[in-house]
């Protein structure tokens, strides 16, 4: 039988290209795998529609109670479209920290590390596939809901494009943070509580339900100093804004957070790998 042994990639560029091919391969397979879970994705869409309906009622009541046309610079329609964007980001989250946690505790991580291509590449390809499918579906459901409930709002193609790009960078940052939490299983018994805290803090301080512009000054300042606002509030606000004045600040925050979190998780992953080779699966 023909021998077909591969080589993997030589040099920095070759290895990077090889890693990209691996990520793409995992992405494609998991994209197909997602098709087997279309029912689950659709159910998530129904839940999102119900959630948006409840939130719309609350915001309509708030605007009526305040007797104002705008709050913090947002019209009611803008707030609802803002919620569509932030909810799409949050509901598309992939809780793969649990999978890593399980891999660590059952020892499967050791076996996964033996495969070429890299453990992180495998998770990243899978994460992207799952996340993008959910994100697109949530945008579709939320968009239809917003159109029916408050109608269309003017959105520039450039802010839309830049905002969606910022969302993709935010998803990458989210991936790194969740990876870091999952790898925490090397040191603590169960990481699910930390993941729960991470998701709840990011929802509150990220401006999931209320744009950060409407936060009290002190809390708003704290929220803006943390990366969650750049992940959730920032891209949504950018899409709704007419200009690109916030783009440098947003991408600096996202890029800086990504570099910091990436560095920490890189170090954590290195320690974790050494622990695997020292202590076994």
């Amino acid at each position, binding site marked *: *039988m023909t021998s077909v*042994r*591969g080589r993997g990639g030589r040099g920095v560029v070759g290895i990077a290209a090889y890693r990209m091919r691996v990520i793409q*391969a995992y992405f494609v*397979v998991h994209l197909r795998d997602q098709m087997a*879970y279309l029912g689950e994705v659709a159910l998530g869409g129904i839940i999102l529609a119900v959630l948006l309906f409840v939130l719309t009622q609350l915001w309509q009541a708030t605007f009526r109670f305040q007797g104002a046309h705008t709050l913090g610079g947002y019209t009611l329609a803008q707030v609802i479209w803002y919620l569509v964007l932030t909810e799409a980001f949050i509901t598309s989250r992939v809780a793969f920290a649990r999978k890593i946690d399980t891999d660590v505790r059952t020892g499967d991580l050791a076996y996964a590390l*033996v495969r070429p291509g890299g453990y992180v590449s495998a998770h990243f390809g899978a994460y992207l596939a799952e996340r993008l499918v959910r994100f697109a579906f949530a945008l579709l459901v939320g968009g239809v809901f917003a159109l029916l409930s408050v109608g269309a709002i003017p959105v520039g193609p450039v802010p839309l494009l830049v905002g969606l790009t910022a969302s993709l960078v935010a998803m990458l940052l989210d991936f790194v943070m969740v990876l870091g939490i999952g790898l925490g299983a090397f040191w603590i018994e169960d990481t699910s509580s930390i993941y729960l805290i991470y998701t709840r803090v990011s929802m509150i301080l990220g401006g999931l339900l209320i744009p950060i512009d409407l936060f009290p000054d002190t809390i708003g300042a704290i929220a803006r100093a943390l990366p969650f606002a750049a992940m959730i509030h920032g891209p949504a606000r950018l899409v709704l804004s007419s200009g690109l004045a916030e783009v440098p600040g947003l991408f600096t925050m996202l890029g800086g957070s990504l570099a910091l979190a990436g560095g920490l998780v890189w170090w954590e992953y290195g320690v974790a790998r050494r622990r695997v080779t*020292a202590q*076994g699966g």
Partner: protein
Amino acid sequence: MATGMRSEIAVSLQGLSRTFERPDLGVPIRGLRRLWTRRPTVEAVALHPTTFHVNAGESVAFIGPNGAGKSTTIKILTGILHPTTGMATVLGHVPWLDRDALSREIATVFGQKSQLWYHLPARDSFTLLTRIHDLDADLARRRAGALCERFGLEGLLDRPVRTLSLGERMRCEVAAALLHSPRILFLDEPTIGLDVIARQELRSIIRELNQRDGVTVFLTSHDAGDVERVCDRAIVIHTGRVVFDGSIETLRRDFVRRKTISLELSSPFTGESPIMSGVVSTQLTPMRWQFQVDTTVVPAETVLAGLIGRMQIADLTITDPPMEDVIAAIYGQASSSEAVS
């Protein structure tokens, strides 16, 4: 112990050992002191210094009871685990230093871990494995086609893995593991949970891979049939030490010092049942007798000579104990030594 030219050695262990430090749970640390007190550790030996070699093209069973050190050894040989002392090479690579290069030349199949995607057809997993092993797509397609034909996977590859029987899935697993033409196949309990037919199929596939393609097979299993039908050589390990390394025939002959002599008589034996020290006789029918001989007490030849003089023998067979008994004896010995220690 098997020896060979250096160039033919596929796996080599030289004084390889592994110890672990475990928290000493016997030392009580109460209250808030747990927060800052580091619990003392005790050293546990998973593998005593071990030396053996496996030549390229051999088919080796690595057997022993649970906790004997099998998994530790395999984890070291596949690059998962660092040893505490000693050296090992697999196909010239030091596994824990050169894990990535090694992973392109070896394959692992774990009976209880799947590398196929549950909801997708196995073909998609094959495509993914082609990419992660960075194989030439055309060559890999031809290789997959050849493997499918050989393993009888036609019609299975396009069905979601979840709809396959365990036997069908395991055939797909082995085919997937062989996609990158590994030179060594590490198998950990590959037939666990399979029915008799599926076991036989898988064993003959592995055997054929070894004999026809020269793939070195390193198998761990608690199943005597796997050991007997797939391997030529056995390495027995328990409590972290290699206690036997030799051919399967020698293992069966020497590990359990017992032989069974079966006689077909030409006329019924009416005398008293032959009584000999170290021999248990059983009359199966008036014309058929069986004698279990403990060869540490009396040689089988002596027993046979005594029987020939007393019985009218039409046919006789002398058999070694079945592999199940050999493995049971190995495990029993491990349990009793644990009990003693």
